[in-house]
């Protein structure tokens, strides 16, 4: 479960101007739900996810992840989340298996528990064939599978996916999307950020349209269609964004 109340983040831009990357965003995301953050590049999606995963602190507002406050209990939040984005990479000189185990150790797994979980996720994601190959030698799709494996190794109840299919081919994208759908089926709370309309349409139970750091609307796809009177998500999105501007 994720609750976000009036969350905001400002940065200093050129010549000390204040840039509001996220401006008073509020929403809730429930277990077994894929909550979509739909927005253009620079809309504030990544900043929002970075705040929720406690990598950066909010300027104002409040949020809890799995019941833990992101400002007061950051370590507990990080223990209960899995985070994957296109910008997160793998260590080139570690094998796929070593990478998965490394992140397992960072999440407090050890001994038999670590070995068993590693074997499980390697099996689940079909990594066995190249588990002992250096990440440097893996294809983009294989790397993304390893990234997914390290994200779920500690079995977190909350998962953040920040444009996880960007740069992937169709087959690799399918794998990622199927994987995210499976996470929903096992009751995980999933926040999925994207700017690709078809992905949002396919995956998201509810969608938050975000633009210039502000929330334009939240709802199911049908709710957003009725709100704008448009049918295609692309048209819905454009109308909502224009209203924010």
């Amino acid at each position, binding site marked *: 479960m994720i609750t976000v109340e009036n969350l905001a983040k400002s940065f200093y831009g050129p010549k000390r101007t204040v840039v509001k990357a996220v401006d008073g965003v509020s929403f809730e995301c429930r277990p077994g739900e894929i909550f979509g953050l739909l927005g253009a590049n620079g809309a504030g999606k990544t900043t929002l996810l*970075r705040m929720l*995963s*406690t*990598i*950066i*602190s909010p300027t104002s507002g409040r949020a809890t992840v799995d019941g833990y406050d992101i400002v007061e209990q950051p*370590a*507990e939040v*990080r*223990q209960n*989340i899995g*985070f994957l*984005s296109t*910008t*997160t*990479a*793998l*260590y080139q*000189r*570690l094998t796929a298996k*070593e990478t998965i185990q*490394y*992140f397992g*150790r*960072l*999440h*407090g797994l050890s001994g038999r528990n670590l070995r068993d979980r590693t074997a499980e996720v390697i099996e689940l994601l079909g990594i066995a064939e190249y588990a002992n190959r*250096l990440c440097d030698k893996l294809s983009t799709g294989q790397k993304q599978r390893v990234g997914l494996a*390290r994200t779920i190794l500690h079995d977190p109840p909350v998962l953040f996916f920040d444009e996880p299919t960007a740069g992937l081919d169709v087959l690799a994208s399918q794998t990622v999307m199927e994987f995210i759908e499976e996470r929903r089926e096992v009751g995980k709370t999933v926040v999925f950020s994207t700017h690709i309309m078809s992905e949002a349409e396919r995956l998201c139970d509810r969608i938050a349209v975000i633009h210039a750091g502000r929330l334009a609307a939240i709802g199911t796809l049908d709710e957003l269609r009725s709100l704008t009177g448009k049918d295609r998500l692309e048209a819905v999105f454009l109308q909502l964004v224009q209203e924010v501007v």
Partner: protein
Amino acid sequence: MKGWWSIYRKELLEFARDKRVLFSAIVGPLLVEVLIIGIFGYVFRAVETEQRYVLFVNDMAAAAPMLEPLRVSKRFTVAELPRDADIDAVLKAQVTDVVLVFPPDFAARSKAGERPEVELYSDPNEQTSQIAAGVVADALDTFRATERGRRLQARNLDPEAFEAFSLVQRAAKTGEAFGGSMLSSFLPYLIIIWAFYGGFSIVSDLVAGEKERGTLETLLVSPVSREAIAFGKFLALATVSLVATISALLGVVAMGVSKLEITETMFDGSVHMSLGSVVAVVLSLLPLIVFFAASLLALSTIARNQREVQGYLSLASFLVLIPAMMSQFIGYTDAATSKWIAFVPVLNTATVLRQALLEKVDYRTLAITVGLSALLASLALLLVVHLFRKESVLFRT
């Protein structure tokens, strides 16, 4: 601070698979020390025993008895100065190293007991010319002393009666220096350089590289605290710097114990070191390595990318190189015993290393050096932790 051990272990595993690290932290320091000592040893030995010189003389008959020691040593080729030769020109053209000129009436005046003037020309800009001039002057001095004695004895006078005193040079028992004075002057510099440069190959990768590749974000999203991340990375860098330093020291010891002919001049003392000196070396080097590692890691954290780190490292090199280089010349001044030396970072460690090699450790200097390096290391570590807590630094890409 859970998790630092996992980060430390992972960094070391990556380093072990990186050929650059293996070369720059293990093979490089060892090889460079062996090469430098070998090359310097060869050069000094050549200067002392193998270098050949050319001496032009205008009067071979007059010079022959005087230059007998040079003929015996076989290091001089004595040739007649061509008639009408321009002495400055032949020296400048390096046709000869020195020129010895006798006056035309030398034999007659000498026989008459007079004191004719003999001229010895050398090129003040050429070291070989200066060395050759010194050797020829020594031979002439020896001949003059013998001739003076002969003349006095011919007059029934005791030559020793004309000497105010006799001089005997003896070596004081100040302890056996490791390798001798030559090595002790530049060894501290070489060791400190490796303590600093040992981590160069990995430092830009440690934080700035992770920012660039996007792996840092993955690390920051784990439950491990930022202090633990900083500490694990710092410790990995310090380990590599320590390995590089030990490797450099092993290179020196290997050359010392191998007792090669070419390094005889470098190891004119023993290769033995007292336990006290070994302790002084370890005590002075460890906090310096920690200081270097923490400072380099701070630069890698501040930088946006690996290229920016390289720029910072170039500037930082000067701050280390200058005091480290000064240590090579400190033995030629009274600064080696000055109290202020202990308060100059890097130079103080070099001084302690030099003292340890010469078996003359000053414990006050050692205590101040260790204390100051430890203080600087602590400040640099605090800076790294502070930087890791600043999101603005970690997301500057």
